[in-house]
């Protein structure tokens, strides 16, 4: 039953992730995280349906409760969703990957730093991120200045606590250290 649940979780996860990415080509979502949550929630009933259909594969249950298999199917399905969301943001937000892609797009000729910086620079990146934070309700804009909203203040405090616990420097404090 447990093996069956895990197989169901992988099958349903692969299908919904593929369908969602195909759908994003037809109708791109403004808020991709929200679209991912919707995709995940829509896929939940299919876990149950596919699990019910699976006994035809006659896997050895060894006296395990059918509820155990279903529990593992839903739990593993959730873990795979987290993993997908993390991989998505690695691809979408990674500064290092963007930098490598910028050099790739420059073609066979080596790229001068000014040319890369012309297309991707710290000011543009910060402005883009502030805009995303504003759209998602973390900050509000007043003229050309910014103020935290409740969600932003909460996330900032949690981040500070996590950084203290694991002794991690926030990005803006790293430049001096890492340059050495």
């Amino acid at each position, binding site marked *: 039953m*447990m093996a069956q649940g895990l197989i169901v979780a992988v099958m349903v996860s692969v299908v919904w992730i593929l369908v969602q*990415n195909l759908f994003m080509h037809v109708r791109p979502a403004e808020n991709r995280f929200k679209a991912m949550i919707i995709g995940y929630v829509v896929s939940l009933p299919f876990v149950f349906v596919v699990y019910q259909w699976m006994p035809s594969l006659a896997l050895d249950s060894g006296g395990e409760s059918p509820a155990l298999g279903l529990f593992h199917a839903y739990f593993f399905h959730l873990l795979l969703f987290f993993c997908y969301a993390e991989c998505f943001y690695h691809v979408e937000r990674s500064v290092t990957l963007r930098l490598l892609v910028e050099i790739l797009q420059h073609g066979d000729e080596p790229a001068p730093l000014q040319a890369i910086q012309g297309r991707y620079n710290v000011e543009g990146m910060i402005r883009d991120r502030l805009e995303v934070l504003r759209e998602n309700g973390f900050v509000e804009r007043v003229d050309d200045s910014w103020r935290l909203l409740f969600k932003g203040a909460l996330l900032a405090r949690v981040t500070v606590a996590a950084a203290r616990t694991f002794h991690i420097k926030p990005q803006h404090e790293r430049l001096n250290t890492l*340059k050495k």
Partner: protein
Amino acid sequence: MKGLIISLAALLSFAMMSAVATRLVRLKRDLILLVYMVPLGAAVYVILFAVTPPDLYFLPGAWMCSSVRLDLLYGLVVYVLNCHTLIDCLSASCGGFSASLLIIILNHRGQLTSTGALVAKFTLADQTDSIYGWRLPHLEKRGYIRKDPRTGHYSLTLKGRVVAVVAHRLKRLMNLGEGG
């Protein structure tokens, strides 16, 4: 079920060991220590799995997996996925630019923070910035890019090209913009 429960205990021990280790050992890159701690937590998981009874003193027979090897492997996969989630959350929050922006605004204690002031936090007096300042030398050192000593222009190595092409194709597959 035993594997899952023990994997959660191993995750907790991983988090606690990491919090202690980050105070004892200082590496140039904060999060790399957490990656090194993952196998240590996995060892804790395997030992706990080996020394505890199949029912963990409380599990009913129907909630015990019939295959011990599958249970052991499943717990290990869940442990690794959870470690990935934890490290990724720390990387995105403590090490991310967006969370860093929120912390800077939080540190201004309710006062408005201008876009220029935020950009300045990611730029040094010599115009070195958080995108290029340490990242280019680091990528060069790790063999992803090479700098032409004569012109100072950058090109991808084979390793860097593979990563850039995969990232570029994934962005296209997911219908994402340039990102970063």
